[in-house]
């Protein structure tokens, strides 16, 4: 698992927000953390599940991605994109194909105390819609592109006030 960890502890100061800033007091602004916008707990399927089971579970939970669990570890993520491009696109049999064959790996994660804007940059750059979120290297939540919209749309109202 490739994990980006900044530091932990609430109330971190926004040192990473703007690298051109000087050290005036006005720059000590609290930033919104990934953890404030993620959904938790995360949903997962076992590594020997079939893609059909994964798809059914995804839609029962009304979500667009599932983590794949092997024993006590998360080993990958399976998303609607994987199901569409790999299973449908290559004509794999959903009943016999295991999720491990189509999942995306390694998992790219970010620490929950990082600024949410870092998550946006990362997700944009890597063209992903779902980002597993860690605390002390343990996955505790999931941040989706919808959560980013919620964050940015909300903060735009703050600007307006």
């Amino acid at each position, binding site marked *: 698992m490739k994990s980006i960890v900044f530091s932990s502890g609430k109330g971190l100061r926004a040192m990473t927000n703007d690298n051109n800033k000087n050290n005036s007091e006005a720059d000590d602004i609290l930033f919104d953390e990934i953890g404030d916008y993620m959904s938790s707990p995360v949903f997962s399927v076992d590594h020997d599940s079939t893609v059909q089971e994964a798809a059914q579970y995804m839609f029962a939970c009304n979500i667009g991605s599932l983590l794949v669990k092997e024993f006590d570890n998360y080993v990958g993520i399976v998303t609607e994109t994987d*199901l569409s491009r790999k*299973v*449908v696109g290559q*004509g794999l049999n959903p009943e016999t194909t295991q999720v491990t064959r189509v999942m995306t790996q390694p998992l790219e994660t970010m620490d929950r105390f990082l600024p949410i804007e870092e998550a946006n940059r990362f997700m944009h750059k890597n063209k992903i819609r779902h980002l597993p979120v860690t605390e002390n290297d343990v996955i505790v939540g999931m941040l989706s592109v919808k959560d980013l919209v919620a964050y940015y749309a909300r903060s735009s109202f703050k600007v307006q006030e």
Partner: protein
Amino acid sequence: MSKHEIHHFSKEQESHLETIGDYMTSPVSGIDAESFVREAAQIMQSEHIGSVFVKENDKFIGIITENDLSRKVVAENLDTETTKVRNIMTEPLISLDCSEHVAKANQMMAQKKIRHLGVTRNREIVGVLSVRDLVSFYANPRMRTW
């Protein structure tokens, strides 16, 4: 034209990069309603997109998304080489005019729980706006006037 670049309609408008037309991807390609779903998935893969508009007689009649492919084809194990796009597409195609404010698109997507909107100009589909485009819009406060 690559994604997230400002497209030419914006130059004809008085507003300051707040309309759907400023953030949409244009032009859009389409797939015939009689095509098979495997073909739709292959287009999504090769063009790195999450949805394709569905055409019938040169008219856009619906949209097929990763959600349709996953929820209907994979979950129900439909045959990808005999199932037609027409049978699993989402219709009607929900769209807004390119002169509408992006906030309206956000509202519409949240309400309908969708990730892609058709964008029209003079009632003709000219582009697509995705949830990712919404993030691009909201994440750039400098570009906004309010």
